[in-house]
């Protein structure tokens, strides 16, 4: 009996420079090495039945990528995770798998993505917080975005659900502004994601710097969660695998 699994994987520093297409190939080859009974499509050019939630752009690390895979036969979930991990290169790791009990394709499910953006800027937490709230108070934030028809202006404000400065020490602010090397500041942002209205974190930061005049070095961007929506609430792809 065929069985569909949904699994979560992470991508670390080691492989952050791979493109989405390169990641897909890594999975196909790892699956072939693993000997797991992956189901193939019918026809002249059989392909593995595996679908990824959201493309992962070059330069991004991630804690929470999701994919759905169809197996020819029933395999114990933890065996699946262990077996596939033995064939994955350093930098890609499967963390958990659940059985998918509906026909909702992971690609259509993804509606939101949470990012952790680390930068170096000569600001205090307080100053950064002011900048964020002034940025979010704008009703329209128009940037040039690549669309199917080429570059065109898009209002990204509706695609930003939240943006917060992460205060590392409770109560105390980082060094005062004007520090020579700047301070390490982290932002948490929940953005619209998926086939429609996808906002990339690097594009958000471009717009943020353009609108606020902030001068910052983006050091790293990590995707920390992917979400779908059920009855107006954010749910992880695992939470909706059952029904």
């Amino acid at each position, binding site marked *: 009996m065929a069985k569909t699994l949904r699994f979560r994987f992470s991508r670390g520093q*080691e*492989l952050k*420079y*791979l*493109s989405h297409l*390169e990641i897909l*190939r*890594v999975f*196909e*080859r*790892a*699956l*072939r*090495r693993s*000997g797991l009974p992956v189901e*193939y499509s019918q026809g002249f*050019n*059989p392909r593995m039945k595996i679908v990824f939630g959201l493309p992962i752009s*070059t*330069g991004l690390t991630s804690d929470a990528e999701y994919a759905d895979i169809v197996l020819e036969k029933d395999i114990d979930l933890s065996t699946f995770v262990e077996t596939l991990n033995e*064939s994955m*290169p*350093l*930098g890609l790791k499967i963390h958990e798998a659940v059985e998918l009990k509906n026909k909702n394709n992971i690609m259509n499910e993804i509606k939101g993505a949470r990012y952790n953006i680390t930068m170096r800027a000569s600001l205090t937490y307080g100053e950064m917080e002011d900048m964020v709230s002034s940025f979010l108070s704008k009703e329209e934030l128009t940037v040039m975005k690549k669309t199917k028809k080429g570059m065109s202006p898009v209002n990204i404000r509706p695609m930003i659900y939240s943006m917060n400065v992460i205060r590392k020490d409770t109560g105390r602010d980082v060094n005062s502004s004007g520090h020579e090397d700047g301070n390490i500041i982290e932002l948490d942002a929940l953005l619209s994601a998926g086939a429609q209205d996808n906002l990339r974190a690097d594009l958000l930061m471009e717009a943020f710097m353009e609108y606020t005049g902030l001068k910052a070095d*983006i*050091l*790293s961007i990590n995707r920390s969660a992917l979400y779908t929506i059920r009855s107006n609430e954010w749910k992880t792809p695992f939470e909706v695998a059952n029904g």
Partner: protein
Amino acid sequence: MRIELNDKILLDVKKPAKYTGNEWNMVRKNPEDVAVRFAFCFPDDYEIGMSHLGMKILYHILNKRDDTYCERAFAPWIDMEDKLRENNIPLYTLETYTPLCEFDIVGFTLQYEMSYSNILNMLDLGKIPVLAKERKEGMPFVIAGGPCTVNPEPLADFFDFFVIGEGEEITNEIIDAYKEWKKAGEKREKFLERVALIEGVYVPSFYDVEYNDDGTIKSITPNRENVPGKIKRRIINNLDTVDFPDEIIVPFVGTVHDRIMLELFRGCIRGCRFCQAGFIYRPVRERSYDNLLDLAKSAVEKTGYEEISLVSLSTSDYSQLPELCNALIEYTEGQKVSLALPSLRLDNFSLGLMDKVSKVRKSGLTFAPEAGTQRLRDVINKGITEEDLLNSVRMAVEGGWNNVKLYFMMGLPTETMEDIDGIADLGIKLIHACRDLPHGKTLNITLSTSCFVPKPFTPFQWEPMDEIDNLMQKQYHLKDRIKKGSRRITYNYHEAKLSMLEAVFARGDRRTGKVLYTAWKKGCKFDGWDEYFEFDKWMEAFEECGIDPKFYANRKRAFTEILPWDHINIGVSKRFLKNECEKAYMGETTENCTANCSFCGVQGYKAGICTRTKRSV
């Protein structure tokens, strides 16, 4: 020192995964646990270098040793080189991000002459003095292997030593010698003296070259005792006795040959007179059927690759091809792996085979008649007749192919305009000959011409290359004739200027090294890539060095002349090559090695086909 790279560099270059390693099957070792650190360098882009079988073999052989760590480096693409130079980051290996200058041995593979400028550039980027004589105690030894070492002279100034021939065994001997030298605590030069005793090693600084007034070579002589007068090419007598890699590195970035390469045999029985590979890899030695089948299976399991390709100079000449193909087809179908069969001669057997191989795109078939008339094909000993070709193409069209590519060379010895016309006429004949077949009217033919470049250790090693102007005229003439002949024929041709440069370095002597150095200083690199080839800079370099490229490329050399590579012994005798050259002029062909032994000289190795073919005179 471990090189640190950041997003600012890597997110600003194309395909950054070429520069970060960590591929599946990359070998991980602690550099502190090994006695010898070896950097294997490929002087071209990652996508080319990672397609090279020789590198995979030697990476595997070296890393099997507990005392050695072999790592990889490639020529960074122009965008990455700019970043490295801007940030003063030395060229590093992908395994441990170690600068090249920190290695014990830095080894390059010489696959084609037009990568020579990249070698100098990589050394410079790796913070290693480009000139061998400027390397001091404690600096790496820079060595080279690969087909171009059969004439190492243009690179004599840049390498500490060359390794002539196949590397599986000799590489181990060099590593052993290095360890002994290190243990003895000797000076740099003593290591060179030690390796000079290994058969197949050539230390250029141990030889002096003298010249005649007319610029030809007067003598090549060892300048110290115990150094061989002739350096003999090394070969592996029995391929089944040496390791062939199954744990091949699987790149993330798509490469040119992104698949398992299964080497059927080395050498070629055919003896086409223009083809260097046909002579410098003799004799033919096959890997056994059982060995190949096991290798294919374990390579699929260990890499997860979706394709296997058979590799050799002429797949059809493998003695157990039908058995091997049947077994491979059965195995690959079960694994959903596809099988590629390049270099097949087209006949009923191979057509049937291609039909059986699951994933064939019936888009294009390639033939290489190499010359437009039977007379010239006899001159070059290309055993293919017009009738063969007509039959093959008709068979192909009947089998469903409608795009056929034909390769030719221009500027071959004895060529006349009749032979050039013959190229167009052959294409036109094929178009007409297939008209009566179903779908025959949809046949498209692409004719491609390259420029003949005479190479060392071929019967044409004494021949002049055709002048650039002549070649260009012939190209225009052919273009015109094809245009008038048929609308279903497309014509492509190679840049004659690049071929001329290739001709200089293929048969150059030590003095041409100065030109290479000057051209590199002027910024020449990636010469094999059209978009970076700067012919004018090269011509300036020749002029500044007072060297006439025509002396090397376009001059007819006398049989009696001492050739720059005369101190290299690849096993094929000069007497045989001269005889083949004379036969060429008379239009006489020579039988292939399976049909009859022609006593080329490699019988001395007592290996492969030489131990089987009966000799009749």
